[in-house]
């Protein structure tokens, strides 16, 4: 568990703000390889900046099972250097301005600089209306625009400061756990599979870029690794104050498996069965029209990929204090191992060829 926590800390510490994830893709790759040493025989970064780690076997007619988790996190980019030495930023990915006043950030300019978002003190605030993000600024402590310019340029990425807080019950709070916690879960799963020899299946971990910008990276997954089936790993809403009935799972009660019209029903069923047969804590969530994950893209990619969506429940999504339970991470990893084994022996006939097959190109 301590090792897993260290992995999470290293992943959180590595800036992968959406649009800038490529900068550190290599670092993510080495952090992951370090954690699951000897569990892979392929590891590389793709053209689009996605990280691939694969466990491939020998022989013909092997199928590719992919575990997709997205590499990028929400964050900001510098839009303006102001006269007073401040900078203004715009958000990359959905961020509620509510969380910004007094929040701490790291500006990734010529060097890493700490900064804080402005806030209006109570003695001066006159309305309960929130400012727009372009009306706020980040204080990096410099006296003038000239000084700021030496270190920071327009377009530089800005990330929320990577504080990791250990809460009770092995719960962890940090920024960017969406979706780094799933990268951790996949890596842990690979570790659990270290001694496992799969007969017919190659496992590809695909940490895709650009999910927070509409799943850019996952458009390339078909070209990059051509999977037959893909478990998309993301975070999902855990119940918190103000949650609407029926739109959440619960923190600490196991991984969440989505039922949705964009996912493959047989593959999803297989995941659910793997959970129940192996006594892995899991929860089912119904997200009919869209899952809000890469699966929405993958189902429409290439010749179509059979997807299942497995999520780690998370509170306070897209904030600097996203909360997860490590128990849920471990149950996710166990489920992935079970699914890999089951899929290896019974690939569900995905895709289904009722007659012929080869002439259809696969």
């Amino acid at each position, binding site marked *: 568990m301590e090792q897993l926590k260290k992995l999470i800390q290293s992943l959180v510490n590595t800036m992968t703000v959406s649009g800038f994830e490529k900068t550190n893709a290599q670092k993510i790759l080495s952090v992951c390889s370090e954690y699951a040493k000897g569990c892979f025989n392929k590891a590389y970064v793709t053209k689009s900046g996605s990280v691939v780690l694969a466990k491939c076997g020998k022989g013909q007619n092997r199928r590719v099972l992919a575990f997709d988790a997205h590499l990028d996190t929400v964050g900001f980019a510098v839009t303006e250097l102001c006269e007073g030495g401040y900078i203004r930023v715009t958000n990359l990915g959905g961020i509620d*301005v509510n969380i910004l006043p007094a929040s701490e950030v790291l500006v990734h300019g010529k060097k890493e600089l700490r900064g804080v978002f402005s806030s209006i003190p109570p003695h001066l605030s006159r309305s309960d209306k929130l400012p727009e993000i372009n009306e706020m600024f980040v204080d990096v402590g410099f006296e003038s625009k000239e000084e700021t310019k030496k270190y920071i340029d327009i377009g530089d990425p800005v990330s929320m400061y990577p504080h990791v807080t250990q809460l009770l019950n092995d719960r962890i709070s940090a920024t960017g756990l969406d979706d780094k916690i799933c990268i951790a879960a996949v890596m842990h799963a690979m570790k659990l599979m270290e001694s496992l020899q799969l007969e017919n299946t190659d496992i590809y971990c695909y940490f895709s870029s650009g999910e927070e910008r509409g799943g850019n990276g996952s458009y390339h997954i078909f070209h990059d690794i051509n999977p037959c089936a893909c478990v998309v790993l993301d975070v999902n809403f855990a119940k918190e104050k103000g949650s609407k009935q029926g739109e959440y799972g619960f923190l600490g009660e196991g991984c969440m498996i989505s039922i949705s019209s964009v996912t493959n029903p047989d593959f999803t069923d297989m995941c659910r069965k793997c959970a129940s047969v192996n006594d892995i804590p899991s929860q089912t969530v119904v997200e009919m029209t869209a899952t809000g994950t890469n699966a929405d893209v993958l189902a429409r990619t290439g010749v179509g990929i059979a997807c299942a969506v497995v999520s780690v429940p998370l509170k306070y999504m897209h904030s600097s*204090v996203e909360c997860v339970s490590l128990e849920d991470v471990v149950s996710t990893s166990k489920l992935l191992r079970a699914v890999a084994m089951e899929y290896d022996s019974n690939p569900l006939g995905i895709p289904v060829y009722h007659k012929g097959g080869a002439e259809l190109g696969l």
Partner: protein
Amino acid sequence: MDFNFFDKDGLSLLESLCNSFGVSGYEHETAQIIIEKITPYCDSVMVDSVGNVIALKKGKGQGNKKIMLCAHMDEVGFAIKSINEDGTLQIDGVGMVSTVLPSKRVVVGKNRIKGVISARPVHLNTDKTKACEISDLVIDVGAKDKQQAQALDLLGEGACFESEFYTFGDGLVKAKALDDRIGCAILCMLTKESFDSDIYFAFTVGEELGGVGAAAATRRINPDFCIVVEGTTASDFDGAKEQDKVCSIRNGAVCPFMDGGTLYDKDLYTCIHEYANDNGIKIQVKTKIAGGTDAAKIQRSLEGIKTAVISLPCRYIHSSSSVAAIEDMQSMYKLISGVCKKLK
């Protein structure tokens, strides 16, 4: 002795004071640090019935005047009001606006349990322009349910921000509670100097509640003069109108003629400004009258006390990330030390 805030000792004292847990009503930890620091240098040190730390350093002169220096120990924060079914904690705020609360780190209660303040997911947020209220927010310490949270004995306990102290940019400090640990730090350092007058150091409780401790301390001391040493709001933002800035960082100590609660003693005000100008110490007034301090309570005590305030300009005051300039701390320190020697 010329104390310098640029040196490591001054900043590390300020750091330990800023990082200490001292929400209004729960100032004990901060008080302990102060008592430890000042006891070797003072003639008497006491904690009074409301929790103020009061110390006397006798002057070397004859027929001494009594000067009271006052800094408040308490900081803005929370109290745990109730425990929810899901194990999260419902909070009440002391001296703060809810806009700076979502998605911040906190420590809770006497066992200093770590927690975070919730933030609604942006995806589920229907009205993006509406600021959330404190009743929408909870502290999450990771408890699984109500029962587990109850066992932690947190009901009625205080909670304060967790926020590291660091220096950044061009000579700035970022920390929580600069208001008013800067006052506490300056008073602590002043106990090491020697004065002709009798100096009473009052580290007060409950300023953020409206000066709970200050009144009691003043009645005990009955000083000839009182200088309140504070942190005040600087809104020197880009684009802020000149009249809305209140004061600016890097422009020196703030000595206003009035604020939201007090019209300061004209003679004392003049004396302070003269001393600053004569000695080349940067000083500024407030360009907007906002906020109040312990001075309101002190001035109205007994038959009336001659009172002034000298403040540090702080950006983003009352949040987890307040920001101030080290050079302003230096100006303040020189000014207060000098004025205490000048007042006869």
